[in-house]
């Protein structure tokens, strides 16, 4: 019921080590999963751009083989976190490990794949040439490259367009190519930063299939998203970040909590109706619709009966399956330093 929280959020860690200057033997928080070691660990990771704090003490652990959702509103620091992990930027303070090696290590990057949020590939190359380039840079043995490239084109649904220049691709096709680039060479950890931002519903389903495929072969997936429904469908665990720190972390069930939600469309809401609504849980109004969160699923008939008794006209009642979204809004509308607890 209670979600595990780690908002230690000390933006001034006592001994700020820049990653890379630290040895692997440094004392680490134990990964939740256990023995196999962690795919990703961060400890009070801070990134500042001038006066802007993009990350304010990020601490989390992602186990190997996990599909991990990294959720937060725009500007929360998701992209910054991934850029730090893949070595595009350096932390201002704090430490992080990728596959148990301090971040910034070149050789470890052979074992990762990355789809950037703002993906762009050489538009004067063909899709096949882009993949061949990345095969070469990733040091994939030359003998395996042709098969790897064809297989990847197949996986991301670009088999028919492999010989066309990237410049002739739609944005969605370029994102598919980017996914392909991230999948080359069977990486152990795959970072996907908003992987469906340019995709149609078919593309979104394809991404889910790809993520499930990665999980099936034991890869770790780190999925950045502000789209809760995406994460809800594929992730084992999620972290919710806001203003550069983790505000909730745990399995989906833990983060959402056991709370249920129901949406009711009603008219003629009076004082008695209001009182009835509030006695069942948190109430949010959106036009004629009222969302009640944090009530027991079994209580819905009673809620409806009470409303009717109060003289409120009910037009529709529907369960909210998008409960992660409610939880998300709940967490983000809290004051900064409040402890995160379930209200149910």
């Amino acid at each position, binding site marked *: 019921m209670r979600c595990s929280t780690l908002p230690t959020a000390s933006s001034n860690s006592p001994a700020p080590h820049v990653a890379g200057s630290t040895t692997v033997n440094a004392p680490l928080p134990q990964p939740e999963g256990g023995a196999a070691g962690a795919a990703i660990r961060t400890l009070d990771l801070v990134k500042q*751009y001038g006066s802007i704090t993009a990350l304010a003490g990020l601490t989390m652990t992602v186990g190997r083989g996990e599909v991990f959702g990294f959720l937060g509103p725009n500007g929360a620091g998701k992209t910054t976190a991934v850029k730090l992990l893949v070595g*595009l930027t350096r932390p201002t303070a704090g430490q992080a490990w990728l596959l148990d090696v301090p971040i910034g290590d070149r050789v470890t*990057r052979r074992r990762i794949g990355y789809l950037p949020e703002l993906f762009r590939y050489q538009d004067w190359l063909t899709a096949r040439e882009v993949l061949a380039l990345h095969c070469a840079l*990733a040091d994939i043995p030359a003998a395996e490259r042709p098969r790897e490239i064809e297989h990847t084109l197949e996986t991301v649904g670009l088999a028919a367009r492999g010989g066309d220049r990237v410049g002739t691709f739609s944005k969605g096709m370029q994102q598919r190519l980017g996914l392909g680039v991230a999948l080359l060479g069977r990486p152990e950890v795959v970072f996907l930063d908003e992987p469906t931002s340019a995709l149609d519903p078919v593309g979104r389903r394809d991404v889910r299939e790809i993520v499930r495929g990665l999980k099936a072969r034991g890869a770790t997936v780190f999925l950045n998203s502000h789209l809760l429904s995406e994460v809800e469908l594929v992730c084992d665990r999620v972290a919710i970040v806001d203003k550069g720190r983790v505000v909730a972390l745990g399995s989906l069930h833990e983060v959402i909590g056991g709370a249920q939600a129901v949406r009711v469309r009603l008219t003629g809401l009076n004082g008695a109706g209001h009182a009835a609504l509030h006695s069942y849980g948190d109430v949010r109004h959106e036009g004629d619709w009222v969302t009640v969160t944090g009530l027991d699923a079994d209580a819905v008939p009673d809620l409806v009966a009470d409303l009717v008794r109060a003289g409120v006209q009910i037009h529709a009642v529907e369960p909210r399956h998008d409960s992660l979204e409610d939880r998300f809004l709940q967490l983000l509308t809290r004051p900064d330093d409040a402890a995160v607890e379930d209200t149910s």
Partner: protein
Amino acid sequence: MSTALTIAGLTLKELSRRRVVLAALVLTAIILGLAAWGFASLPRASCGRNPCSEVQIRSAASILLIMMMFMISFVIALGAAFLAAPAIAGDIESGVALSILPRPIRRRDVLLGKWLALAGVITLYTLVVGGILMAIVSLATGYQPPAPLLAVAYVAAEGVMLLTLALLGSTRLGPMACGIMAVVLFGVAWMMGVAGAVGMIFQNQAITNIGVIASLILPTDGLWRAAAYHLSPTFLLATAAQVGVSGNPFIVAAPPTPAYHVWAAVWLVAVLALAAYSFERRDL
């Protein structure tokens, strides 16, 4: 090293796919065509009432050749600046760098690969264009400069030097700003070189010092002077000495000193190393 070669190949492919090479070749053909026409008409020129003497024609040819080479060196310097300015900055701006750099590669190898490809293109271009120009002059007028190959090599080195500077700028500035910076610095260095030479004639220590300091910061002008020296035949230098035009950037009486050569080489390596360092430290 294999990364550098991969990136070098990619850079060459980009130049050809983007038709940069084609555009350069077309423009060059036009310039060389005009030059051939001009030089071919030189032997038929008349000096006063009589046709020009052999010596007069050769003098004219030697001066014209130096002017042509100066123009070409200018084009090459501009070309180098505008090829190198977007080399890193363009990839960062477009986002292509975001997918390339997290690969298990060193950024300095990416930089070195770009440098190798662009320096190769600049050098080859200079050799070909310079060679054709020398051949045109020789066929049309029978004149050959004292050391054509050395002169062309110095012009190529000037282009490579500016390319390296622009590459350094490219690791921090946007493509536009970087290209403009390189061209402006090149122009300033040239002006300061002229100022320094004028200072020497008038024995003005302050102006001479400005010239020296500018040539230490960006030694491109010294390379042009070396090229001009190797294009200046002794009879031209003798005439120039009589008339007293030693501040002229086109007629240079003495080759650059060994110390200058050492400094130019050190400068090149240092700026390339600085570019690599700057790129490694760049936050993306």
